[in-house]
Each structure stands twice: as structure tokens, then as C-alpha cells.
């Protein structure tokens, strides 16, 4: 497999072309949006909890940007659906990066974890789940917009 195929492997292109969980959720229980000022990627995430008020029952996103940022957010929705908010709050980024499964340069890494950062901020705001230092930095760097 050439490097080109590796970087834009079929599964990423598939998520980019046919994003899962695409679209805003109204009404929703949690929401945040953010951008990557470097390449202008934008992601907005909406979450609805199950009756227990903890479990992510539905998750949707809207956004525009490079294939990596949009495909990674699409993969993220599949990864976290059915999980509890506090579990997602501490979800290591490596778990998402394994799903993406391609080597990323430091610049493209920011594209890949934009959606995860936005989701963590949304849960932090709605549920008061912890937002570790690493993501607070990201909150500044990525201009995760205040509601």
C-alpha cells in the first residue's frame, strides 16, 4: 500500500463522504463548537442523554474542514455512542487515533482530535465532567467557542 493510500485509506474517505451522526440534534442536552484556526476546520457537536441522564443516547455533529477532521469526528460519534459522559470525559485520544489508524504529523493531529476536544468541552459544560489540563490548553488553542 502506498503512503497516499495509507493516509487517505478507504475507511477515512468513506467517513468523509458519508459522515455518521451528521446533523444537529434539536433539542439537545449538551453542545459545543470549535475551530482549528490553522486550517479553518469547524466542528459543532450535539448530545442527547438516555433516561439515566448519563449515557450518550444520541450524538450529532455539523462541520466543515479537511477530510481528517470530518472523518475523525464521524468515527468519534460511533466510538462514544452508548458510553457514559464521565467515561468519555477521560477517554484517551489514543483510542480515537487507533480508530483512525494512520500516522499523523503534529499539524494534522490537531485536525484529528478537534471533534473529541469539542465533545469533552460539551460534556464538561453540561455535566461538570472533568476537563483535564491537556484539553484546557486545547480549548484555548482550538478556540472552542463559548455558547
Amino acid at each position, binding site marked *: 500500500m*502506498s503512503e497516499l493510500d495509507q*493516509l487517505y485509506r478507504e475507511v477515512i474517505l468513506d467517513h468523509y463522504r458519508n459522515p455518521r451522526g451528521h446533523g444537529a440534534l434539536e433539542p439537545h442536552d449538551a453542545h459545543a463548537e470549535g475551530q482549528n484556526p490553522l486550517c479553518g476546520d469547524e466542528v459543532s457537536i450535539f448530545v442527547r442523554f438516555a433516561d439515566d441522564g448519563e449515557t450518550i443516547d444520541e450524538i450529532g455533529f455539523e462541520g466543515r474542514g*479537511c*477530510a481528517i477532521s470530518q472523518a475523525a469526528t464521524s468515527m468519534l460519534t460511533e466510538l462514544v455512542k452508548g458510553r457514559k459522559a464521565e467515561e468519555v470525559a477521560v477517554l484517551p485520544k489514543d483510542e480515537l487515533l487507533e480508530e483512525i489508524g494512520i500516522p499523523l504529523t503534529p499539524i*494534522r493531529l490537531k485536525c484529528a482530535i478537534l471533534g473529541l476536544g469539542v465533545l469533552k468541552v460539551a460534556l464538561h459544560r453540561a455535566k461538570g465532567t472533568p476537563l483535564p489540563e491537556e484539553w484546557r490548553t486545547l480549548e484555548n488553542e482550538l478556540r472552542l467557542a463559548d455558547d
Partner: protein
Amino acid sequence: MAVTPATKLDARRLRADFPVFDELVNGKPVAFLDSAASTQKPRQVLDAMREFYEHSYANVHRGVYTLAERATAGYEGAREKVRAYVNAPSSREVIFTRGATEALNLVAYAWGLDNLGPGDVVVITELEHHSNFVPWQFIAKKTGAEFAHIPIDDLGELQLDALDEIATRGNVKVVANNLVSNTLGTVNPVEKLATWAHEQGAIMVVDAAQAAPHRKIDVQALGCDFLAFSSHKLCGPSGVGALWGRRELLEEMQPFNFGGEMIRSVALDRTSWNELPYKFEAGTPAIAEAYGFGVAIDYVSEIGLDAIEAHEHELVVQAMDALAEIPGLRIFGPPAERRTGIVSFELENVHPHDVAQILDWEGVAVRAGHHCTQPLMTRLGVAATTRASFYLYSLPEEVDRLVAGLLKVRKTFA
């Protein structure tokens, strides 16, 4: 312009001067199409700087020993080369800065803070690089002056018929414009703007960062009051650039930075300033870099600005013709006759970062992003573009590789 044998340069021969072109990226020779961001460096500049450090280096201006004299001669010799390069009346009017950005900040602060106030208007354009936009926006806010912009049309050319309306808004005091747009390559009518600016009693500030490396600059013919450019876009080292300013304006201005070298005398209760240009060169400057800047000016001048301009024009015509054949590709900016060797474009349904990433795997280096021109991106209705830019060492087959790479991008995202 017409290409005659007398003005033709041999890019293939010139490439031998640039060690970086021996480098393989992803197993392929680099098609470096990002010279608008920064240019590669010829051996002549690299060797001269090394030689300078090995034989002639010390701090400049104050030492009485031989090495200091040699260093000062090298540094001041470079100033004279900059003067001649832009046809400035006097080398006292040439100030070494960290680059075009610092030069433009110097004017905005040192001239703007003392000369702007409520009722005054600062005029920039929708095409400006942030470095000639944000300093003026900031200083206008700080002084209460109005901040007005000249809009562009759909081809990225300035709409000068907006000037009459702008003149009704107050006392126009500054007009700031880039001679060449870094994103679109548009060559702007700076002479006309300078005439209009002077009719309003305003000063004309020219950002020549994208112009000076590519075409002949004559500050007296342009009729401007300040002109800024950088060494690193002209085959020279980074960390140094120049500001040319009219002597009477520079004489009136207060210093921008304070420290060593820029003073005449310092006492506990007062300080007086050194003469031009040293008033604006506080601290130890980028000595070897300024020297290298001068060598780069020699290198480029020897090839000839007319030959460089003609070479880039051939490449931009080739690129625009070939890119226009790619389905879903949209080129921004004016026709080739009214631009330099810069082409910005978008490819339908593919983000510029994905375009640049795939091109990199093909060994083609292009820029993707907003190019520090966010107001222009907003005007064009895009978040970012992909930009290819050429210089004296660029080859027709590199344009071919760009086109082949773009076809691959399209196939990947089909």
C-alpha cells in the same frame, strides 16, 4: 511582458546554485512551489555568510579594531545595496528591520501614534496581508481614527471608484497597500494610489514583500513615502528586511525601539536620538543576515529582475492554462497579465489541506490556508485556498507535476 533572448534566464542552470534541490522528499526531488512564503538559498549567499562569520565578524559601528571595521563595512555595504535596489535617494533612508512585518509595524507605531486622531481616516485594502492590515487596525483604534478599506472586484482587483466615497469620511492620513498580493499575485496600481493619497494630504505606505523579489522597484517612480520588504523572500537569510522612508518623515518621527546605538546622548533626565538611520536600529542588528541580504540582492540583480519577471510570467501562464483544464478547479485572481507568479485555487469538495497533503506525497510543496489574508478569504467566500508560487529556479516540469498531483487528488476524492 515579451520574452526576448536577452531577458531569458536559464532556470535549470541556476538550480545548480541551490543545494536544497539535491534533496529527495518521499523519494522524489522536491517541486518547491512555495516561494511566496519563503525562497530557497543559493550557495553564493550561504558561502558568503559563512565567510563573513569566519573572517569579518564583530559587532558593528563602535569597535575601533580591524574586525569591527570589516563587519561595519559589510553591514553598511549591504545598506547601500538595498538603497540601489529600490532606487532610494539616500542610504540614510534605509533602515534594517527584522523583515517587512517589523518595518510596517515601525511605520504604524512611530508615524501613526503621533499623527492620527479622531476625524482621520486610515485606508487599507481588502487584499492586504495581515502584516499591513492588523498594525493599522490596531493603531486606528488606539488613536480614534477611522479604518476604511478599498474593496476588490471578483477578479481580486482594487475598486478605485470607492476612493471618492472614502474621501468623504474624514481626513485621509494614510493609504497602505501591497504592491503585489501574496494570495492572488495581483499587481496593484500603487502609483495611482500614491497620487490620490498625496492629493488627500496622506502618506503612502507600500508593502513590497511580494514585489521586490520579482520585479524592478523604484521608490521614486512609485511616488510612495514608505516601502517595506524582506530578505528571505529574495534568496537571502530570514531575520532581516528593510524599510525605506522619505527622509523628512523619518526625521520627524520618534524612535520605535529604544536601547543601544539609537541614542546620541543619555543623561539621567533626558536622551537625544542618533541620526538616521541609526535612530531606528536599537540594539545589535542581524549583522551577518544583513550582509547576506546584500549578497542575495547581488545574486538576483545579476540574473536581472526583467528576466525573473518574464520567467515567472511564462510559468504562471502555463499553470493557469493547465489548471483551467482540471474539472472542478477554480482559480482566484486576475488574468496572468496582471499578476506575478502566484496562483491560488480551490478544488471542488476537497479541503486545501488535503490537497497539499496529497501533493506532498508526490514531492510537490504548495501552501494551503488563509495565507494571512483572512479578510480576503471572507471576500472570496472560502475558508482557505491552495497556492502555488514560482521563482527564478522554478521549472515547467514542476508545473506539470503539480497538475498530475491534482489529478491524483481528484481521483482519491472522487
